[in-house]
């Protein structure tokens, strides 16, 4: 499997899915809500990311039918996904501390 550069979007998606299983539209909504409209992802960008994470086995999908008969794909984070998320969180913290340190001096 090619080691792709993990974008920050992926990290945010993983973080959201850690809390609970969500389907595509739900993810967009949550991101928008929690970031207080800072992250307003284009729907079209989300799905390639989701499917990429699924192919890398960081998240797993299952299909479920709603009351109205619509089929939704729910994504949940896997063990591997949790580990990768922790790694990325550490990296991000190191990064943001460094940025903050430099900006504080400016």
């Amino acid at each position, binding site marked *: 499997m090619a080691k792709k550069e993990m974008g920050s979007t992926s990290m945010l998606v993983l973080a959201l899915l850690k809390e609970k299983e969500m389907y595509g539209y739900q993810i967009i*909504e949550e991101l928008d809500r929690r970031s207080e409209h800072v992250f307003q992802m284009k729907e079209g960008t989300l799905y390639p990311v989701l499917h990429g994470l699924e*192919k890398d086995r960081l998240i797993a999908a299952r299909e479920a039918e709603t009351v109205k008969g619509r089929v939704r794909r729910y994504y949940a984070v896997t063990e591997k996904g949790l580990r990768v998320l922790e790694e990325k969180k550490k990296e991000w913290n190191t990064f943001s501390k460094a940025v903050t340190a430099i900006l504080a001096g400016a």
Partner: protein
Amino acid sequence: MSEKDWLDTATKKIRFRPDRKAVRRELEAHLEDMREASGLEEDAALRTMGDPEAVAEELGRVHKPWLGYLWRASQAALAGAAVLYCVMLGMLAVRPGYSYRVLPGMGLYNYLQTDVDMLDPACVIEARELPPGAAFETGGYTIRPERTVLRQVSGTDGPQWNLYIELDITLSRWEEPLDYWFALSGVRTGAGTPCGMHRMSACWGFWQKCGLEFEGLPEDAEWVELDFGYGQLRRTLHIDLTEEAEA
């Protein structure tokens, strides 16, 4: 651009059809969710979805068709094998002398049912169990003599002595039973040779059962020797006719 066009464009780079349909379904459901939740008009909704060409690129990069093609190929292989199996069964069934081995398991069943001793007990005047000869190994075959019986039977020319030997043979190669017709290279007794011989064999997998019946042994014969194999593979099985088997 209509919703249908957007979806078609966005999924056009996913080459494997079942994958393309699945992704399209997911995106369609997303659009429905969005329409319900936000109540936006078609154009506006599609604009928030983003540029379909860019999405197509990304999706195309993630959904590579190779595993899908491999899956189709494996399905074709399985279907082909199943069809071939039925055709083969058909071809065998019309062949004369078909032995009804529809499944490999039937060979084992037939093997277990086989009674290598086919002699009619009504002909037997007297029977004596002999201790079986020693097991031996040659050419990859392990030959274990089991039931050995010296019988006096009423033959067409009067009573005659027959020696019946049951062999349990372990094969070293799958379904390559000992060809007893040729593998038996010689028969001797101390007083001449038997005048006739019947043979019977059943085999499955690595096991073989073989029954040999030597007819018309000389009356004063005290032992029988059977030669199996040729050259360096030759082995001799010695059977003592005077001993009595333990009860």
